């Protein structure tokens, strides 16, 4: 079965630096890979989606890369701000081969210090 690995340890960075979060998966390459942000006591909020035939996607200060050879996605936040502190979830969308069931990773907590 598909497994997702995200850094279980929290990531602490200084304001203004680039935060890089990793998402590794173990089985088949998903049709899509999504990143969500989750704040304490709230539901996840969609940030970005990248397709299996795309290498990179950008949205404002966010950048996602997708390497199907390494079975890995990297999520970057440039010029990080304290308001970026949250848990970031990687989600794999297997498409038809996986019955369209989105699988979420456990998330990585990010702390941005002022």
């Amino acid at each position, binding site marked *: 079965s598909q497994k997702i690995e995200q850094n279980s340890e929290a990531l602490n960075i200084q304001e203004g630096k680039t935060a890089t979060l990793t998402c590794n998966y173990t089985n088949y390459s998903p049709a899509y890979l999504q990143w969500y942000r989750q704040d304490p*006591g709230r539901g996840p909020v969609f940030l970005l989606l990248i397709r299996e035939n795309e290498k990179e996607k950008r949205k404002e200060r966010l950048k996602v890369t997708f390497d199907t050879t390494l079975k890995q996605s990297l999520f970057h936040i440039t010029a990080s701000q304290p308001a970026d502190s949250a848990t970031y979830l990687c989600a794999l969308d297997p498409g038809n081969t996986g019955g*369209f069931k989105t699988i979420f990773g456990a998330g990585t907590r990010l702390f941005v210090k002022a």
Partner: protein
Amino acid sequence: EAGVVQSPRYKIIEKKQPVAFWCNPISGHNTLYWYLQNLGQGPELLIRYENEEAVDDSQLPKDRFSAERLKGVDSTLKIQPAELGDSAVYLCASSLQGGTGNEQFFGPGTRLTVL
């Protein structure tokens, strides 16, 4: 535009009691999901509806959990009887349609504590 609405936000019950959660998805969203999220973990799908049809309920513990979406709009998830291990956050999400590559919009969740 209103987001996904869930109620109650918090629920504390004793074990063996029944409990129900309600979800109203974003207007026009045909697909509705119920997820369970344990502390420090990602959401795990319990059931997915396409309109009023449950198209994926393989992860729903059917001996004690049930769900319905009678008119293809709002939905109710029920647990009867609740067990200590059911303590978690129950998230509802919706998307315009099912299939692949669709952004999911989540509600705030219901935090269930079973004593």
